């Protein structure tokens, strides 16, 4: 095609031709929205039309002074706690399933299965599981004689966020587990052999050999848990539309923008969330000793 050009010219042509569109897409669809979000956050834009006035830091003041906006982070905390439990369980099953065990591939596949199931359909499936009268959970509890454990899983405001966070655990535990298994398998087996010769028991092997070797993966998982919890949206939105005290920060942002047509305020909320994420990742990368640079 370009045989008549020198390799130097071809190189220039390839670099331009191959990078132009992808980088343009990146700039237009990721960076431009982020920057304009910053601009909108200082305006009173409604999101309809292009009329907007500069209001300085008013939107930010509103976020930090209207308690109901910031209080929604309490709901996100349930997803964070769920995420911690999920990470612990994932590590536990990863350790079990990376050892010699009959049927381990079958169990790996079973525990990973929820991750590939369609996400909205999964939430609706759980709606049927949690149903007060006919939901399979309460029916099952009744059948095994645990009537006293039957609950209004979505109606009880003290319980509903746990019920929703559980769905997230159910869906993503297998994913974390497979990631941990990948990390565990990269530890050379002879290290365990020599640890055994030195008389280390299983717990000591885990504590002093396994844990340090998978540290960076574990750290990454925890960060993903935290940022994932901050961005929790789909499960409470599909299940409850954020009703009954299940509205997370992102649901509030989306409602503020598209339902209450306060795009300026919503943009400021988006910027606050983005700052949180950046700070968390910065802390992990720079401040934690031994973190990746």
């Amino acid at each position: 095609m370009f045989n008549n050009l020198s390799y130097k010219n071809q190189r220039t042509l390839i670099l331009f031709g191959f990078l132009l569109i992808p980088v343009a897409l990146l700039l237009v669809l990721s960076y431009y929205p982020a920057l304009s979000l910053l601009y909108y956050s200082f305006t009173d834009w409604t999101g309809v039309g292009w009329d907007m006035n500069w209001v300085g830091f008013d939107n930010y003041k509103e976020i930090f002074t209207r308690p109901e906006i910031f209080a929604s982070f309490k709901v996100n905390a349930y997803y964070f706690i769920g995420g911690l439990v999920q990470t612990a369980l994932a590590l536990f099953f990863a350790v079990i399933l990376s050892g010699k065990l009959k049927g381990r591939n079958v169990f790996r596949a079973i525990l990973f299965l929820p991750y590939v199931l369609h996400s909205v359909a999964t939430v609706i499936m759980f709606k049927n599981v949690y149903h007060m009268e006919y939901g399979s959970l309460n029916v099952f509890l009744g059948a095994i004689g645990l009537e006293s454990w039957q609950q209004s899983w979505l109606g009880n405001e003290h319980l509903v966020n746990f019920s929703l966070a559980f769905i997230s655990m159910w869906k993503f535990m297998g994913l974390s587990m497979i990631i941990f298994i990948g990390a565990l398998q990269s530890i050379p087996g002879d290290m365990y052999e020599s640890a055994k010769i030195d008389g280390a028991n299983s717990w000591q092997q885990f504590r002093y050999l396994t844990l340090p070797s998978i540290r960076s993966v574990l750290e990454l998982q925890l960060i993903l848990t935290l940022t994932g919890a901050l961005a929790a949206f789909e499960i409470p939105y599909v299940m409850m539309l954020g009703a009954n005290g299940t509205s997370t920060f992102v649901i509030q942002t989306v409602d503020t923008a598209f339902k209450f047509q306060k795009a300026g305020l919503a943009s400021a909320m988006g910027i606050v969330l983005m700052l949180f994420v950046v700070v968390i990742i910065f802390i992990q990368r720079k401040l934690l000793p031994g973190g990746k640079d």
Partner: protein
Amino acid sequence: METKQNKLVSVLKYLFLIAASFVVFFPIYSVFIGAFKTQVEYYQSGMALPHDFFNFDNFKRVMKIGKLGSSFWNIGIIMVISLAGNIIFGTMVAYALGRFKFKLRAPIMALYLGAQLIPTITTQVSTFSVIKAFGLYNTMGAPILLYLGADVLQIVIYLQFINSIPKDLDESAMMEGASLFKIYRSIIFPLLAPATATLVILKSISIYNDFYTPYLYMPAQKLRVVSTAIYSFVGPNAAQINVISAGILIIFIPTVVLFLFLQKYIFSGVTSGAVKG
């Protein structure tokens, strides 16, 4: 003594694994049996198996009222076009960044990494106005454009792969006078196939699953995809619970089939992305 203890440990391991498997299958079992039951049966029979496993009424009804056929068609078109673009752009970027040293190389890598820090869901307010400005609102062009760009995970996986392709191959092709474009097309692109397979599977699952993009950018009824179709079953004009169960089951099938046959690729993609990312 030693072996007795080992036996106990492996019994315990199996108990935990069986308990976890039970938790995984319990909700799936509930929708599975529900999908074959009549409405009266659903409310009366609890967790029992359905009377008639050949009762496909719910499946027929959900296909009709949910217009699932056209939802599968729509998401299929969106997937084919976005994935094709994704592969072409992803391999091109990887070739340019992986094979050449140039001034903008580091800044471009930084751009890709930095983009991961932006939580896309919160920038929707302004992404929305970009899509509107392009005139793509309420067209399939909106999700296609949003899925088209390569993400960091993709670049990282492709770069890892391209680095393992020996540079000698490029050089000997150059000796024979092949153009750089030809080297990309007939050496690099084909050799990236295993990475492409992994990425296509992972991307397919994530596009198929995505709810927010179609929900926000394509509210038109005729543009419904699978996510927005099943979402419309809940809420005020909800369908009967047994009919919804059939819908859930149908929607589960494609990715489960993909998983059963291509598990190896899915696992390798998930791990390589996380360990290196």
